[in-house]
């Protein structure tokens, strides 16, 4: 082999190895999954799905015929728009539905979404998850553009009666981080790519169906079955 061509051969070999490793890594299944499914980049709810953070944040009755599971991002404007619709559905159906909210912060486009998810989880550690959840959505336009959103979160924590020092510590603690991650792992495994994404009895709703009016129709149909 000519000396001058050898470095190019080595560079080419490293490039090929890198591409090979990338493909191998990309086709690896979810952490707990070994070799059950080859189309792993777009898994469906029929595959092995991690449970998400336990216990989950839920409303309604676990025995209800209809389950709604929302994957949301507190900084995402469509999630903020869906929030009053979900509140209406919760109020109308009460224990006839079982609603679960899961974190799926899209941090790459929403700078403070991850912190907001942790703020809600930190409030949950003091038993006031839903109060913080509502505060974050109703004040989305304020903290999303604040220079220091953490100060806003602490203000909300104070308003809903949390121990702010504990809230501050919990927000940066391992527990909140872990819960958000577990929800995100579930979102990934269920093929969630955007927010809000709502599953009704395990079936993903289309964007057109993700509003109070259409969800009401679909819930009524599911209740009749």
């Amino acid at each position, binding site marked *: 082999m000519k000396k*001058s061509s050898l470095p190019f051969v080595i560079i080419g070999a490293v490039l090929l190895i*890198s591409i090979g*490793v990338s493909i191998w890594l990309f086709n690896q299944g979810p952490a707990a999954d070994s070799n059950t499914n080859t189309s792993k980049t777009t898994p469906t709810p029929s595959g092995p799905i991690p449970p998400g953070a336990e216990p989950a944040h839920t409303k309604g009755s676990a025995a209800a015929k209809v389950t709604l599971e929302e994957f949301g991002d507190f900084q995402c404007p469509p999630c903020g728009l869906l929030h009053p619709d979900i509140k209406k559905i919760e109020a109308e159906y009460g224990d006839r539905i079982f609603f679960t909210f899961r974190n799926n912060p899209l941090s790459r486009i929403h700078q403070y979404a991850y912190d907001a998810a942790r703020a809600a989880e930190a409030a949950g550690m003091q038993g006031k998850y839903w109060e913080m959840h509502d505060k974050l959505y109703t004040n989305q336009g304020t903290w999303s553009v604040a220079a220091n959103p953490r100060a806003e979160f602490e203000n909300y924590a104070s308003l809903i009666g949390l121990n702010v020092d504990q809230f501050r510590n919990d927000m940066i603690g391992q527990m909140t981080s872990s819960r958000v991650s577990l929800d995100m792992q579930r979102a990934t495994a269920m093929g969630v790519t955007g927010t809000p994404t709502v599953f009704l009895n395990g079936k993903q709703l289309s964007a057109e169906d993700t509003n109070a009016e259409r969800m009401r129709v679909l819930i009524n149909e599911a209740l009749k079955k």
Partner: protein
Amino acid sequence: MKRPANYKNANSGPRLGIFYPLIVVVSLVGLFDALFLTVKHFRHEVVRCTVTGGCEEVLNSAYASIGPIPLAAVGLLAYFTVFSLALMICFGYARLRAHLLGLIVLMSLMTGFLMYVQAFVLKHYCQYCLLSAAVTISCLLLVIGARIQNRSSA
């Protein structure tokens, strides 16, 4: 055989010593570290830190991407370029040394900024980012070492 314009026989110039081969090896570590993070990014997978505990905070932050492009992919390209340049220098393309030095200095500046972000803005550390920082700083020290050796042997 006709040599490229930027080819200079290794035997005719200053001695290369161990520095450039070491950069070749060290840059491979950075390359596979960046490759791992790039793939995780495009798989929308959560990366867990086993040592430092701050991967999620750092890799999900607004500083982890430039628009749709993950910073890890930029690092991947940079490490591959460092690897290629260092390897070619080892094979006698001595005039590429200035390019390698420039690139490594640029990467070191970026590393300094990212270390500042981890320490003072995010207040969390990602072990894979620390490994990448260590690789870049090692490359910087090695390329400086090579320059000093060249000057003293010239």
